[in-house]
């Protein structure tokens, strides 16, 4: 278990992280979401020890993280970094060997991983000749090749096409299934929503929400329904206990005080004409995110 407690960091008087605390559990994918400049990258760099912190602690399994613990971390920095003039396979093998694998084992691992990431055809090409998306895959291989116990990835999905997103997602899930703690940041909230077991939402350098996906959803679910009907749905406003959120002709989104009120609305709609759809609405991560960071 990777645990961050009370981390603060200031740059020249401006506080960029304030009392940041959350856990990244082994065997799970934790999504780290926040707007631009919210402090995601700063937090990740502090966990990796490439940036100092003003106060707070980073613990692994109850003890402060040491530099030898960090050998078992995998990291994908925000600004992609590989040697441009090295061949893809050779590069990943080099990193695996720096982590202590023998040459043969390093080669085998690098080859397997790159193939799983869809770079099997490009093993002998220089990194700089790869497209950005492919460089990204190579970068992910660099973070993963030594079977890290903790995996920290800064925006691993940015710039990937939907198929590549799936490939990378499956590799990360496999890694988590093998017991690694995986933390990744992303702007693609739909991907995070689909993939993550746990979520951490940061804004303005403070953690606004953290927990499992289900917890967060439950916490932020209002009794909200969506109605699509043939006639004008303006009458819904008049039903006691209803607050209309959105309204357009036969379409309405509204909150209700009790389940009974919802049923009243449905009966009313059926009496007035055809009902195309009537369903409770679960908030998407994007909605929760907007709500939480306000």
């Amino acid at each position: 278990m990777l645990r961050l407690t009370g981390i603060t960091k200031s740059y020249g008087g401006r506080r960029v992280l304030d009392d940041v605390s959350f856990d990244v559990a082994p065997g799970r994918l934790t999504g780290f979401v926040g707007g631009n400049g919210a402090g995601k990258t700063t937090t990740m760099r502090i966990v990796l020890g490439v940036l100092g912190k003003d106060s707070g602690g980073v613990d692994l399994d109850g003890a402060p993280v040491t530099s030898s613990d960090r050998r078992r971390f995998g990291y994908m920095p925000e600004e992609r970094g590989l040697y441009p003039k090295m061949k893809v396979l050779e590069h990943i093998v080099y990193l695996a060997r720096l982590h202590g694998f023998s040459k043969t084992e390093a080669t085998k691992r690098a080859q397997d991983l790159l193939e799983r990431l869809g770079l099997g055809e490009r093993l002998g090409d220089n990194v700089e000749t790869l497209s950005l998306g492919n460089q990204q895959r190579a970068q992910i291989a660099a973070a993963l090749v030594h079977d890290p116990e903790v995996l920290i990835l800064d925006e691993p999905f940015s710039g990937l096409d939907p198929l590549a997103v799936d490939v990378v997602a499956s590799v990360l899930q496999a890694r988590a299934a093998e017991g690694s703690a995986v933390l990744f940041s992303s702007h693609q909230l739909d991907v995070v929503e689909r993939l993550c077991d746990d979520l951490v939402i940061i804004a303005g350098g403070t953690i606004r929400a953290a927990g499992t996906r289900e917890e967060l959803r439950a916490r932020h679910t209002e009794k909200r329904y969506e109605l699509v009907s043939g006639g004008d749905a303006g009458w819904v406003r008049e039903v006691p206990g209803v607050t209309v959120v959105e309204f357009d002709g036969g379409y309405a989104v509204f909150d209700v005080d009790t389940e009974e009120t919802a049923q009243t609305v449905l009966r009313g709609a059926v009496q007035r004409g055809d009902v195309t759809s009537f369903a409770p609405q679960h908030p998407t991560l994007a909605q929760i995110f907007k709500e939480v960071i306000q």
Partner: protein
Amino acid sequence: MSTPTTSPTNRPAPSTAQSVWLVAEREIGSKLRSKAFVISTAILFVIALAGVIWGGFTARDTSGIPVAVTPDATSQVQGIEGIDITDAADRAAAEDLIRDGKVDAAIVGDSSSPIGYALVAESSAPTTLLLLLAKTPPVELLEPDETGGALRYLVAIGFGAVFLLAASLFGGTIAQSVVEEKQTRVVEILISAVPTRALLAGKVIGNTILAMAQILGLAAIAVIGLSVTGQAALLQGLGGPIAWFAVFFFFGFILLASLFAAAAAMVSRQEDIGSTTTPLTFLVMAPYFLVIFFNDNPLVVGIMSYVPFSAPVGMPLRLFLGDAQWWEPLLSLVILIVTCVAAILLGAKIYENSLLRMGGRVKLAEALRG
């Protein structure tokens, strides 16, 4: 490891030596694969070979060195190849021959000389001739002159140029490679795998190996070139200084390499390298210009031969000219090694403190404080 599922990697970390060697290996490999490097090295070797052969021919002359010999010294020059003897009746006649330009030097009997004879020359003693003689006689110059012989000049420039080229080429390589890692952020991945010092040591060692290989290649070319052109005597005189040069270069290069790496770690972009490495570039260039302008000034060369940055050029030159005592290169080498150790410690500190500071240039005071 309290959670049983979280330890897929209970692999022992590689030892520091292994990490250092992996880094060094990569440095060497990436350099050897660079076409620019291979071609420039080939050109350097060709130029060196041409220089040695040309220098050899210049020094040899076609029929040997014309030397006037007085009857009382004839026995001293018997059996020496490569000189062209003109008999002179006495010392005055020999000196006339020198002044007329008919001979380069004269060997005359001299009762005040410990070996029974002395060498007289016009403005400078022909170095090649001194090398040919079994014992070094006292030299008397008729018109002492500030300019040295052509050979002294060639040797001085040779050591100076080789030092300049190799040190700036590989110093620059280290600097670039440090900044490349910072600029591409690959350094953030690297230092999560290996200690910072191992990274620095690997870079310095890798480039030192390459630089030494180049120096030894050049030394081999010098030896081969001199043998081919039949300059066995010159080779005998140059062999020792070349060997010393290689030893001095080895430590001198490690010294410079550590400083280049440290200086480069202070910036984050290739464009900014110049702002911190320029002072070092001057240090690399200084010995070259000093030997060009002052190779005949014993005081300057003497000082050069002890200052760590110029000792690799200054001391071999003095050894070649024969004006260094046997202990002098050893003392100078000790000074160089001590400075080298200090530079490694200083360089490692600056490197460690600056490596992860991205953005603007790191101030030297900050880099030293940490």
